[in-house]
C-alpha cells in the first residue's frame, strides 16, 4: 500500500492546477482514473508522508462465522450515525421533518430509509388494500382506482429529486448558520420512482379540455391538498407506487403519491386519494400561505412550482475534518427542476477562480447529478463553492445576485430548522481554516 499511495501522490503533484488553491483538472478523473495513470507514468516512488503500515494479520471477524442472513437487511452497526436528523423528536403536535445526511452519502440515489420526509400531522397507517384513488370533477366519468389496479398499468420508471421548497431556508439568514449539509440542505433527496403516468388515468376518465387545474389531495388527517396545473399533469406527472424498487416508504406517501418532477415537494401530494379536475386553483392553506413567499418589497410570490437549479458540496463539508494537506476529492450534488445539469464549476478561493468539475453519468433530467473535482490541499485556508448550469441555460445565482432579488433577514437566524423564507437556490460556501476545521461561510 505504501508505494501505491506514493505513486498516486507523485501523479497528483505532477498535475497542473486549473484554478486557485489547488483545484486539479477533472481529466484526472476520466477514463481509468488517476490511480492507474499515475502507476503507469512513474516508477516506484518514495513516501511523502507516513511511516510504513503495520504488518497485516487476521482480525477476529475473519476467524469465525458471522451472523445469520436477515430477511430485511440494515446498515452495519458502525454506520449508526448515518441517520436523518429530526426537527420534532418528541412528537409534539406540529410538523415533523427528517433530513437526509448528505455529508455521509455519495453517488446520487438516496436510500429509502434516509429519504427526507415532512409530515404535517404524522404518518397515516394506511392499509393498501383499503386505500382508494378517485378522479372526478371536470371528467366524463369519475373513476376509482385501487393499488392493485394501478399495479397492472404500464409503469414508468425514472429518477427524480424531490425538494421541499423550504430546503436551505436558513441561508436567508444575514449571517451564516453553522450547520451541516444535512441540516441546511437535508430536505432534498433523489430516488428512482415507478408509477402510472397520470395522463393515462385522466384520459380514461375523459378530462374536459376546458380544465386548467387539478386539486390533488391526500388521505392524511389534514387531507392535505395542492392545486396542480393540468399542463404539468399531462406532461410528466406520475402516480408513483414504487420508490427505489420497493413500495413507497410511509413517510414518502405509502401506498401512492403524486410525482411532479422538478416541482416543489409539497405539490407531490402523498397518500394520494383524490384528484378533482377543476377550472381554478383552490388557494389552499399550503399554496396560498405557507409556500407563497414574501419578497423584500412586501409583495409575495405565488405558484412558484419550480425547484430551480442548485448545487452544494457534500465532501468535504461542515462536520468533516481534514486529515492534513494532500489529495482530496471535492464532490457534491447538482439538480434542476428545468432539466439536465449541463455544467458544474468549483472554486477553492471563494469564487475568484473556477474550474469545471467532472459530471458523473448518466445525467438524468430533474435528478441529482454527482460532480467530482480532484483537489490537492496545501493546508492553507480555502473557501470551497460549487455552481451549476442546466441544459435550459439556467445558472445558479451568486449569493449577492440572489439576495438582491429575494432579500435576507435583518438579524441572524438562530435555528438551522427555521423556515425563514422559501426557494433558496444560491451557492453554499465551506470555509476551511489552516487546522482543517470546516465552517459554513458566505463568500
Amino acid at each position, binding site marked *: 500500500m505504501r508505494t501505491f499511495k506514493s505513486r498516486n501522490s507523485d501523479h497528483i503533484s505532477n498535475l497542473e492546477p486549473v484554478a486557485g488553491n489547488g483545484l486539479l483538472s477533472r481529466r484526472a478523473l476520466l477514463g481509468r482514473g488517476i490511480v492507474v495513470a499515475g502507476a503507469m507514468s512513474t516508477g516506484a516512488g518514495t513516501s511523502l508522508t507516513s511511516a510504513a503500515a503495520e504488518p497485516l494479520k487476521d482480525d477476529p471477524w475473519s476467524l469465525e462465522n458471522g451472523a445469520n442472513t436477515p430477511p430485511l437487511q440494515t446498515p452495519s452497526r458502525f454506520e449508526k450515525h448515518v441517520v436523518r436528523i429530526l426537527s420534532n423528536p418528541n412528537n*409534539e*403536535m*406540529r410538523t415533523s421533518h427528517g433530513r437526509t445526511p448528505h455529508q455521509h452519502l455519495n453517488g446520487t440515489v438516496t436510500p429509502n430509509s434516509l429519504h427526507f420526509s415532512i409530515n404535517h*400531522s404524522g404518518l397515516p397507517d394506511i392499509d393498501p388494500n383499503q386505500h382508494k384513488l*378517485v*378522479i*372526478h370533477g371536470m371528467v366524463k366519468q*369519475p*373513476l*376509482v*382506482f385501487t393499488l392493485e*389496479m*394501478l399495479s*397492472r*398499468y*404500464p409503469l414508468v420508471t425514472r429518477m427524480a429529486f424531490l425538494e421541499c421548497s423550504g430546503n436551505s431556508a436558513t441561508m*436567508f439568514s444575514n449571517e451564516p448558520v453553522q450547520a451541516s449539509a444535512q441540516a441546511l440542505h437535508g430536505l432534498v433527496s433523489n430516488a428512482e420512482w415507478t408509477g402510472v403516468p397520470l395522463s393515462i388515468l385522466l384520459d*380514461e376518465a375523459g378530462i374536459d379540455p376546458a380544465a*386548467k*387545474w387539478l386539486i390533488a389531495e391526500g388521505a392524511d*388527517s*389534514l*387531507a392535505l*391538498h395542492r392545486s396542480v*396545473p393540468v*399542463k*404539468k399533469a399531462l406532461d410528466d406527472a406520475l402516480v408513483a407506487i414504487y420508490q427505489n424498487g420497493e413500495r413507497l416508504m410511509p413517510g414518502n406517501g405509502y401506498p401512492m403519491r403524486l410525482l411532479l418532477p422538478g416541482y416543489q415537494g409539497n405539490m407531490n401530494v402523498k397518500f394520494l*386519494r*383524490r384528484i*378533482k379536475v*377543476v377550472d*381554478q*386553483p*383552490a*388557494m*389552499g*392553506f399550503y399554496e*396560498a*400561505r405557507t409556500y*407563497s413567499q*414574501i*419578497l*423584500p*418589497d*412586501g*409583495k*409575495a*410570490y*405565488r*405558484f*412558484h*412550482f*419550480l425547484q430551480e437549479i442548485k448545487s452544494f458540496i457534500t465532501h468535504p463539508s461542515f462536520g468533516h475534518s481534514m486529515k492534513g494537506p494532500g489529495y482530496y476529492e471535492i464532490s457534491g450534488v447538482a439538480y434542476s427542476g428545468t432539466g439536465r445539469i449541463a455544467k458544474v464549476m468549483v472554486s477553492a478561493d471563494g469564487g475568484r477562480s473556477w474550474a469545471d468539475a467532472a459530471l458523473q453519468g448518466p445525467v438524468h433530467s430533474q435528478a441529482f447529478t454527482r460532480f467530482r473535482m480532484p483537489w490537492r490541499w496545501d493546508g492553507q485556508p480555502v473557501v470551497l463553492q460549487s455552481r451549476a448550469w442546466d441544459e435550459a441555460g439556467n445558472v445558479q445565482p451568486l449569493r449577492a445576485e440572489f439576495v438582491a432579488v*429575494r*432579500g*435576507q433577514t*435583518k438579524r441572524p*437566524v438562530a435555528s438551522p430548522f427555521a423556515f*425563514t*423564507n422559501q426557494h433558496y437556490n444560491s451557492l453554499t460556501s465551506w470555509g476551511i481554516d489552516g487546522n482543517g476545521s470546516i465552517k459554513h461561510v458566505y463568500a
Partner: protein
Amino acid sequence: MSTLNALLAVAAALAFGSATANAETPKLGTPITEQDIAAWDIAAMPNGAGLPPGSGTAVQGAKVFAEKCSVCHGEGAKGGTVARAPLFGGRPITDGIDTPKTIGNFWGHATTVFDFTRRAMPFSAPRTLTPEDIYATTAYLLYLNKIIGENEVMDAKTLPAVKMPHRDNFIIRFPDRI
C-alpha cells in the same frame, strides 16, 4: 421452425403487442358517481364552489373557538402552548422576508380560512365540526383580523365576497406554467 425464425416471430409479436398497447389503455378504474364522492369532496374554492349550506357570525364563532380551538391556539386566538402563533394581527409583511404570516397580514382569500378549518381542524379531531361551526369560526377569525364586523353573517354567498386586504399582493412566479 429454425431458432432464428422463432426469434423473429417473437420479436414481431412483441412489436405488434406494444403498438396495440399504445392505442389501448387498461381502463381498470371503477365508475363512481359524484354523490358517492361527496364525503371527500371538501375543497372550498375562492369563488365559493364547494361551500356547504349553513352560516355563522363572529359572535357565535367566539363560543365555538373557546370550546374547540383555544386548547391549542390560546384564549381569543392569541397563541397557546401548542399552536404558539397568534391567528390575527402581525407586523406588516413589508417588515421583512421572514415576517410571520397571519390571516390579516397575508392571506388572499377568506375561503382558505374555511377550507383549512373544515379539512384539518381541530388538529386532533379533523372533520368533526358542523358547517355552522366552521362558518362561525371563520367569521370569528376574520373579525379578529378586523376584516369583517362582529355580526356579519358568513355563508356560501358572503364568504367568497369578503375582500382580503392582501388579495392583490401576489405575483404569479411562473405564469407560463399554468
